[in-house]
């Protein structure tokens, strides 16, 4: 009980204090509040992972009924992910925000929102009452919205923020429909009643109920086709907010999807197939579009969609495994999904933070303008490289581990599966490998163009590395990434309890990854260690060999051409030219072109803007149609006062006349009922 009051009051005190403090005081207040909550919730979470669920019932009010708080293994896993991201992201944010020290009011608001966002995100993991859940969800969405708007003087930022605001409210509408549906049938807001209700219903009804929740949470998570807010919101927000949005905020959608899976009784094969299909599309489509992007943060945002796809693939496989009564596929599917949730939050926040460093140093995120940063910002380069290798799923980093778990599940079931599920498995394998290959292409492009070669643009201010303190949390994240890659067994052990929650749904004989998880991963980590050792040995040998040899430094070979400029380098667009031509039908690329004409050529230019085809057909097209339809009624709003008075009179007359024709209305309704 005391814990809960601490959880509520400490952030509250911090929020009240922040506006009245000096700049340094604000920072300390924000960070102290974050650390306090992190310690508090981690304590509860570690208990839950060890098998000791905490449950607490608050009295609540007459509206909400009693409010149940519960931290089980699933909540605990997400709590720990959230805590790590906010502790590192908050620390990074303190120093990132130094650049805006001349806007103290703006910073106060930002600090308050940051604490609020963190508090609501952690509380969402524990709340088991639908009304309180929705309220917390709304506060979370609004504080994220206002955090995005930090640089509100830019039009693009406002547009991105409003886009996010609208879409997150569409998400809330779906959730509300789901919750109200259950509440109207059971008369209670407790999550346990969702379970009781769904067990009393047929599979089709439960599925419909689940789909409402799924769409609501999927908008937050960014599954295709609900992803369109992500590529706008991430680039607009400050770096630490985009890191947290991509690392945590969209994961709360995943948490919701998993939580509802635990509560609603479903035909798991159907649900699994639906989730798997959507996830495969998200994964492949996300990375396909990521490759085309010129804005570094937008590129990373599309990669979030891809990784959400990979997580979804895990969830889908887990569900199908449940339906097939296959403990291997089920446990490895959910384990892969949960581990990838952690992994993605690590490397994606690292990528966004390094992108933030680049933005602070160069004031641009346009890949085509960057280049050669490795010489100016060597530490940022190494950190970005580690994260890039991890996100491509390459050993010995953490991304490989979660993808490997998924592959093990897939190949492990191939023998026992039947023809329909086999085709699903083959498509999943193709999808996963394509995602891996495309991710390598995307990040070799991003890393190669941004950090390597010669600078493509003349920056007016000197480009230099950010301060050590700003880099410190990034080193922590990188160390965590490598430690998961090298010692995956430990993390798989921590996943036993959360995965058990799911396998217990069908009473599958799941025995803590013995036989197919832990031992295999031990061999993987051994193999990774061999790789690292070999690299180290080779580096030493190379150094010894080259010591005695003559080393010459010269210009890059340009086929004998001796005056190369930076413009001669391969650019990001040219790197992906063949690819974008090959898969042109999937993309929508707007071109602005002025060709070279005449005997004495004048200036020419070519601009390309990749656009999202799904956004065009799923968002823009219906909205434009709706707008043009509503446009037909514009004559009502003609600006003449007389007409507006007339509308008022018509309204009043209608209202007054309703009782007069009440009987007729009743009669009409009765008539309709007869039909």
């Amino acid at each position, binding site marked *: 009980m005391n814990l809960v009051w601490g959880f509520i009051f400490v952030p509250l005190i911090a929020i009240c204090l922040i506006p009245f403090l000096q700049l340094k005081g604000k920072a300390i207040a924000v960070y102290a509040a974050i650390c306090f909550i992190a310690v508090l919730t981690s304590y509860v979470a570690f208990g839950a992972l060890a098998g000791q669920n905490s449950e607490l019932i608050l009295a609540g009010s007459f509206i909400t009924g009693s409010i149940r708080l519960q931290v089980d293994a699933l909540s605990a896993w997400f709590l720990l992910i959230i805590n790590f991201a906010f502790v590192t992201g908050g620390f990074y944010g303190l120093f990132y925000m130094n650049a805006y020290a001349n806007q103290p009011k703006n910073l106060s608001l930002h600090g308050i929102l940051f604490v609020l966002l963190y508090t609501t995100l952690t509380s969402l993991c524990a709340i088991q009452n639908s009304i309180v859940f929705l309220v917390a969800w709304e506060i979370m969405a609004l504080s994220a919205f206002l955090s995005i708007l930090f640089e509100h003087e830019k039009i693009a930022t406002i547009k991105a923020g409003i886009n996010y605001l609208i879409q997150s409210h569409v998400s809330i509408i779906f959730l509300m429909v789901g919750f109200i549906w259950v509440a109207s049938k059971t008369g209670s807001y407790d999550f346990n009643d969702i379970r009781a209700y769904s067990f009393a219903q047929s599979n089709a009804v439960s599925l419909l109920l689940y789909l409402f929740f799924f769409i609501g949470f999927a908008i937050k998570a960014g599954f295709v086709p609900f992803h369109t807010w992500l590529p706008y919101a991430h680039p607009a927000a400050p770096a630490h907010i985009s890191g947290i949005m991509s690392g945590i905020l969209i994961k709360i959608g995943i948490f919701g999807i998993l939580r509802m899976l635990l509560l609603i009784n479903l035909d798991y094969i159907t649900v699994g197939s639906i989730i798997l299909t959507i996830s495969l599309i998200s994964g492949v489509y996300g990375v396909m579009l990521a490759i085309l992007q010129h804005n570094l943060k937008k590129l990373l945002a599309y990669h979030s969609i891809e990784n959400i796809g990979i997580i979804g693939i895990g969830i889908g496989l887990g569900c199908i495994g449940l339906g097939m009564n296959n403990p291997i596929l089920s446990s490895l599917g959910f384990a892969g999904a949960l581990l990838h949730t952690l992994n993605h939050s690590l490397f994606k926040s690292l990528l966004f933070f390094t992108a933030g460093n680049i933005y602070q140093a160069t004031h641009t995120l346009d890949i085509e303008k960057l280049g050669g940063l490795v010489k100016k910002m060597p530490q940022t380069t190494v950190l970005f490289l580690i994260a890039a290798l991890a996100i491509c*799923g390459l050993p010995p980093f953490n991304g490989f581990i979660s993808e490997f778990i998924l592959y093990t599940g897939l190949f492990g079931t191939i023998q026992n599966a039947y023809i329909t599920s086999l085709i699903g498995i083959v498509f999943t394998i193709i999808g996963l490998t394509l995602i891996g290959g495309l991710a390598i292409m995307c990040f070799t492009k991003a890393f*190669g163009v941004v950090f390597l070669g010669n600078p493509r643009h003349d920056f007016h201010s000197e480009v230099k590395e950010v301060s050590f303190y700003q880099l410190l949390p990034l080193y922590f994240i990188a160390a965590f990434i490598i430690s998961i890659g090298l010692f995956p067994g430990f993390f798989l052990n921590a996943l036993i309890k959360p995965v058990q929650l799911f396998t217990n749904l069908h009473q599958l004989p799941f025995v803590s990854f013995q036989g197919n998880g832990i031992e295999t991963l031990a061999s993987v980590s051994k193999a990774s260690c061999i790789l690292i050792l070999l690299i180290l040995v080779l580096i030493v040998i190379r150094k010894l060999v080259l010591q005695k040899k003559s080393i010459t430094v*010269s*210009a890059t*070979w340009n086929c004998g051409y001796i005056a190369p400029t930076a413009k*001669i380098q391969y650019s990001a667009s040219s790197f*992906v030219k063949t690819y974008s031509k090959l898969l042109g039908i999937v993309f929508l690329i707007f071109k602005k072109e002025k060709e070279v004409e005449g005997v004495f050529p004048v200036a020419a230019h070519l601009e390309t803007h990749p656009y999202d085809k799904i956004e065009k057909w799923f968002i823009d097209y219906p909205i434009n149609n709706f707008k043009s339809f509503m446009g037909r009624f514009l004559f009502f709003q003609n600006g003449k006062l007389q007409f507006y008075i007339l509308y008022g009179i018509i309204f009043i007359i209608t209202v007054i006349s309703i009782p007069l024709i009440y009987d007729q209305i009743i009669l009409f309704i009765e008539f309709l009922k007869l039909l």
Partner: protein
Amino acid sequence: MLSSLLIILAATFFTGIIIRTKSIASGRKGPGIFQPVKDVIRLFRKGAVYSKTTSFVFQIAPTIYFASVFVAMLVIPFGQSKGIISFNGDFIFFAYILGIGKFFSIIGAMDTGSSFEGMGASREALYSMFAEPAFFILMGSLALLTGFTSFQEIFSALHLGSSISYALAVMAAFVFLMIAMIENSRMPLDDPKTHLELTMVHEVMILDNSGFDLGLILTAGYLKFAIYGAIIFNLFSGTIAYQYAIPMFFGMQAFLAFVVGMIESFMARFRMNHNAQFIVVLSSVSLLIFFGALLVSGKFI
């Protein structure tokens, strides 16, 4: 252990045989089959030239590329004897460890800031991305046929009984050979002997490498050929005793090298824009193998 030794031995002559075959086919005498190894040894003795544009990435890239190929080699079994690294799903590790080498060779090329090397890097990234599904579907169908998920178990349980399974094995050998050609950027996709940078894939990526680094890259190429040769040999070897299997292994490697040499002598390189289509065809051949495997295992009901 045994497999790694054999692969290293086979790597010493594989590329030499390709070159010799090509020379004889074009009416020349050609160098000895150990000439590539001698070239590498000479490179190891040389100094190095580095571009002033490059950074530490360019310096470590060849090392990591070589290390990745070497560790991938440790995964390959030889008949009954396991590779040094062997576990369930080791072929996934195999593909991804080659991926890390590829990643570094691509960014190593990008590090030079040259227009040509970026071109090669872009092509390499694209082709290897398309080739990957073929490998995974193929391994998936072998896993389906045998019920195991590690190289060694799959290959030792792979009994070629019916005529269908022979057809499957031949198709699988074809796919593996083609993947080897893509990985090594050889003839139908890339001509290692071309003189125009614009038409190269792999060669243009290593234009600026010299000395020790170039030696490592070349050695890794030789190893890759022998690795894929060993995989193809494993498809057919099954449970043959060592005294027959080892000579057969070298015979097979020499034969494959000969085949590669003949392909390179009598085939023109594809147009660049046809390469991607060709690689996608490989995936569909793998899918064919997969359906064949379904047929054999009696799941096609």
